[in-house]
């Protein structure tokens, strides 16, 4: 089976490409490597790199003592999962409607969805806050999640994917007696799996890192996600302690990093197939 790839670089091109890849990899990993170094060494070594510097877990103890990270982690997890679950359901149904049904005003409605893509969520903060106040949802996990559950990007992406599904498969399912929802479930969703994985990754990383809206809409430890909890260590008034900041950052980013490393192959393949760059 293995034939040499005619497009694979050879000779000088290969050297250049390899060097470029290494350079990018080093640039990418340097901050992470620094964070790991600083987190596991005492404060004196945060800017001095001595190979035999003593290792310590003291920074972790200090961070965990300074902030209820377990609680923040749980909040972030709840918030991210809740958003993603709602997004998947809503976007799938909306995309299916737009892709396969010709109803009155479909184009106008889709244009409105596209217009929403152009609006930064940050400009809607005041209006969203007012809505959350009226719903009595300020300072709750649903309050953080609700403005994001209908995702224009998700609708757009899935609609394009569903449109590329051959109509014959749909027809065949109908002939077999499948209802519209069964068709969606048995035909469209399985075929769009790579897109779902890619979209989920984008959504999770966006919401895991989301800061401004959660900061504004939450008031208490019980509702705040990691990002808002993390900034306790970034206060510059009292001077910056790099070891603690790096440790806290590492704790916050670890679940995503581990997940990415574990599912790296699937993610990369999904992105290739889904065409999101």
């Amino acid at each position, binding site marked *: 089976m293995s034939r040499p790839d005619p497009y694979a670089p050879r000779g000088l091109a290969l050297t250049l490409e390899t060097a470029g890849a290494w350079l990018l990899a080093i640039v990418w990993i340097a901050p992470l490597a620094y964070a790991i170094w600083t987190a596991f060494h005492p404060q004196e070594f945060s800017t001095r790199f001595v190979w035999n510097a003593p290792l310590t877990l003291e920074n972790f103890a200090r961070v965990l003592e300074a*902030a209820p990270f377990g609680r923040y982690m749980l909040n972030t997890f709840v918030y991210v999962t809740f958003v993603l679950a709602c997004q998947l359901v809503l976007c799938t149904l909306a995309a299916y409607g737009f892709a396969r049904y010709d109803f009155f005003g479909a184009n106008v409605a889709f244009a409105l969805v596209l217009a929403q893509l152009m609006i930064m969520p940050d400009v809607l903060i005041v209006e969203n806050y007012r809505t959350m*106040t009226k719903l*009595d949802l300020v300072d709750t996990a649903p309050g953080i*999640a609700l403005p994001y559950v209908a995702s224009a990007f998700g609708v757009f992406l899935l609609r394009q994917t569903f449109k590329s599904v051959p109509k014959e498969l749909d027809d065949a399912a109908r002939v077999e007696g499948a209802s519209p929802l069964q068709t969606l479930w048995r035909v469209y969703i399985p075929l769009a799996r790579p897109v779902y994985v890619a979209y989920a990754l984008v959504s999770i990383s966006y919401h895991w890192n989301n800061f401004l809206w959660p900061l504004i809409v939450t008031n208490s*430890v019980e509702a705040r996600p990691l990002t808002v909890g993390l*900034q306790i260590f970034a206060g*510059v008034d009292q001077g910056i302690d790099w070891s603690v900041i790096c440790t806290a950052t590492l704790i916050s980013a670890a679940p995503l990093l581990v997940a990415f490393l574990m599912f790296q192959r699937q993610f990369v393949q999904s992105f290739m197939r889904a065409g999101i760059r």
Partner: protein
Amino acid sequence: MDRRQFIGGASALAVGAMAPGAVSAQAAQEISFFYPVAVGGPITKLIDAYAADFQKDNPGVAVKPIYAGSYQETIVKALTAHKSGTPPVTSVLLSTDMFTLIDEDAIIPFDEFVKTDADKAWLKSFYPAFMENSQTGGKTWGIPFQRSTVVLYWNKEAFKEAGLDPEKPPQTWAEQLDFAQKLTKRDAAGNVTQWGIQIPSSGFPYWLFQGLTTQAGAILANAAGNEVKLDAPEVVEALQYWIDLAQKHKVHPPGVTEWGTTPKDFFERKIAMMWTTTGNLTNVRNNAKFPFGVAMLPAGKRRGSPTGGGNFYIFKKSKPAEQQAAFNFIKWITTPERAARWGIDTGYVAVRADAWDTPAMKDYVAGFPAAAVARDQLPHAVAEFSTHDNQRVTKALNDGLQAAITGAKPPAQAMKDAQTEAMRILKDYK
């Protein structure tokens, strides 16, 4: 079951793990209080204790502190809530945000609550230097709470090694330069191993720069907050002095120096003298592994430093009864005893003169005389730079300063450009 519980419950079912929504069933009147610190630090414990004590003294009123991050994040949060019609009742925010809050119609002056003679005496008890950033147009909009000034920290060991008297900090600009020259150490290759002095210039260089301009005899902004004088000859002279430390005399690290890591550079003996806030006092005390001193900033034509830090504000859209309760809380938390305790616990400057006469404060100063330096400097202190549309005007000044420090523009030109930009922004407020 109300809506919040329902949705909380529904999402718990949906995702499998979710604590019930906020539990809040109280008969007491609740006063929401935004405080600019993130959750979990030692300061939150102090604030929580104040809130609990106040409730003990005033059953029926519950002050609910909400920790909102940095000053910047707190004002974003407070103004968002204000625009949505549900502001906090009171908040501690930067004293320099006064004009912004007035322009947004977010706060009310304290004057309407000050009725009795005792109230009037209370309002007069704060240091005038702090009130400069709290009053405009004849009204008091903010009450000083956590205030600071810039002071000079010096490493006594480094002084001894350089042949200087470790107990005598520099008193004038000339001495400061002279000391810095003696304190700058170079290795055989000519690389600097210890700089004489560092005046940080990242983030908010205008604040430390204001120390220099005040000493040079300039006042940057008027009390109405609609006129600035950034290109006055004294201002350029102050900037030239700062830049010369680095570029001409080479006793100050070149380029923009980082505010946040300046104390760390000091601990690691990379710098022998530093300018920074009194708010760093506890940090330096805990982390400096050598004897250090704290002094007033050296004098140019005069001594001088800006004040800094946060004031209490009361928000306009809250209910009158809540505002009154918040006023009582603010009065309660700024009694001499509590102002003294707060200063001792945090390192902020106790905001009223009689706080320094309390036994607790006297004991503290006797054991740690450095704590009183900021107070002694107050008669020389001026208002922190604050104008209408403060963020943009301050940015114009900061950009000018950093352009001059990095050598992108000559000082006079940089300040002239900053002045033009600032006055363009301010022309709507004339």
